[in-house]
């Protein structure tokens, strides 16, 4: 078996997380470029019920660890099991969803295996890398480019781990595209025998509470997002009003969330939610890379900002240079008039 590209499949309430299916799409691309197989790792209880779905979304092979001790995610048994699989089958690349538990697990695995891990990648590619060291040039072929905004989203960095395997990365939900096979595929299942020693069973989940998020940013084809330019909670009400008028949902930049203008469920960007609505209106958002990474694929982008040099105008289709406190009420008024 040659050094596959693997996706760690995360179960949430016994359902495969969307981000895992999205990553299977990306893993297929990467595997094809490397001429290797695309595989999946799944841990849980009665994991076989998920195999069909995993094959449909692109895996050629599934490493399936079915064990009562793996019923709920806890870091110690999961780290041991995934590391055992990686050490035995030596994948080239392993991808994880940047969910809460994915971000709990992946770094532990990287630490145990002493390999690299890049968080919250917005793009993954295969390419070559040259490293100059002490006058010598060392060439690496076909390695994983792990691309992510860095430094608070002010720059884009391409990270590589040329000397360590597997190369590992996490990716947020909504960033990669699902690639479901039209014809039902099947493949090979490798059942992993797990032996979880008692001393690793150190955490016990007492209860798990589902809390509705205050907004589902992907539930509407219109997102009206506000940023620090609005300044106050009072002004931010205009965003809610415009969203209500147009039938959209309210988004926000990280700066607006950090400043307490709105809660983090509304955050659009690399460390928030990625959206691709038909219409995205960015109000008082300057356009840091970390924000743009989460909305630049929207069909139509309108930016409203007092600063005519704000970077957001560079990716917008329409720009209005002006004060939101005056522009938004006018937009609402005109819309209501025209609608009649």
């Amino acid at each position, binding site marked *: 078996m040659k050094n596959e590209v693997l996706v760690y499949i995360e179960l949430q309430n016994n359902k495969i997380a969307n981000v895992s299916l999205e990553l299977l799409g990306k893993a297929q691309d990467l595997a094809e470029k490397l001429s290797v197989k695309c595989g999946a790792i799944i841990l849980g209880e009665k994991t076989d019920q998920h195999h069909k779905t995993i094959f449909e979304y692109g895996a050629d092979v599934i490493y399936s660890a079915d064990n009562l001790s793996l019923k709920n995610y806890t870091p110690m048994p999961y780290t041991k099991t995934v590391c055992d699989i990686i050490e035995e089958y030596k994948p080239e690349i392993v991808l994880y969803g940047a969910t809460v538990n994915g971000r709990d697990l992946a770094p532990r695995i990287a630490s145990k295996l002493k390999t690299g891990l890049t968080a919250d990648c917005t793009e993954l590619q295969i390419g070559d890398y040259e490293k100059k060291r002490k006058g010598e040039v060392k060439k690496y072929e076909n390695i994983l480019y792990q691309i992510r905004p860095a430094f608070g989203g002010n720059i884009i960095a*391409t990270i590589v781990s040329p000397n360590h395997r597997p190369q590992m990365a996490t990716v947020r939900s909504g960033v990669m595209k699902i690639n479901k096979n039209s014809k039902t595929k099947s493949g090979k299942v490798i059942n992993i025998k797990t032996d979880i020693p008692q001393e690793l069973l*150190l955490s016990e*989940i007492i209860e798990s509470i589902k809390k509705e998020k205050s907004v589902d940013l992907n539930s509407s084809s219109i997102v009206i997002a506000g940023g620090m330019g609005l300044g106050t909670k009072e002004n931010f009400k205009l965003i809610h009003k415009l969203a209500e008028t147009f039938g959209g949902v309210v988004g926000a930049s990280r700066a607006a969330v950090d400043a307490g203008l709105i809660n983090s469920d509304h955050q659009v960007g690399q460390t928030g939610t990625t959206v691709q609505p038909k*219409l995205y209106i960015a109000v008082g958002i300057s356009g840091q890379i970390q924000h743009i990474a989460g909305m630049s694929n929207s069909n139509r982008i309108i930016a409203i900002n007092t600063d005519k040099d704000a970077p957001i105008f560079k990716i917008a*289709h329409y720009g209005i*240079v002006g004060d939101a406190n005056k522009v938004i009420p006018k937009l609402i008024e005109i819309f209501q008039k025209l609608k009649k």
Partner: protein
Amino acid sequence: MFKIVVLVKQVPDTKNITGDAMKADGTVNRSALPTIFNPEDLNALEEALKIKDEFGAEIIVLTMGPPNASNVLRKSLFRGADDVILLSDIKFSAADTLATSYALSLAIKKIGNFDLIIGGTQAIDGDTAQVGPQTAEKLKINQLTFIDKIVKLTKNEIIVNRTTDFGYETVKAKLPILLTITGEANTPRPYSVKQTLTYKNAISLIEKHDYDDGYLESDNDDKPFIITNWNHEDINADVESCGLSGSPTQVKKIENVVLEAGNYKEIENSEDGLKMLISELMSEHIIG
């Protein structure tokens, strides 16, 4: 009485980037950025202080960074930390998260006999949230991350609420354990006047060049509290596993993003301009 090690980091204030922050070649001009106490690390310290208030605890704050990272240690003392350690050595520089966790874990082993390690969930300069779990793994201890609330703590056991992708879960685990705390957990307290007076002259010997040496030798009541500094030899670190050489990840390329102007159209900020825009969106059935 608990022994708690709090992990903190001094970070560039990435939220207040100014025009000078980027060099012409697109790299970050770190020296132009003000530094701050990583916000969630303040939440971590606050959780430790709450435990100290309620049950009694010895709090040791540990940071890895350049000599001037002593700033966050002084601020920790002002808030109520009992001791602070600066892990600083040129050999640690340019460490990725793996090499960072290696050095931190050796320092924590040297401190020894801890019940809890507490850090912020993530630092605002990298947003990786990796160092906590990587350090726990190196120490071969359990972890609970993304904690919004410590529900209960006893000598041997802790119960917390941690954020999940769909709400939260309540988890019980045994000590010793590493915890990472979110910004939702608490509001960090201000400096204590008493602590601030006691530690106002706290200084690390590797930053002492900023001061007059005579001042250190003086016998008056203002004799400074000396911040412990450990280098790679103090923690018995293998140099090859530290800093740049101990980092599997390398930066291939850094780009200042050039945003492409697409089909950009400026709408005149007037009744007519806005009317045209709204009409267009309506006629295309995007709104309405």
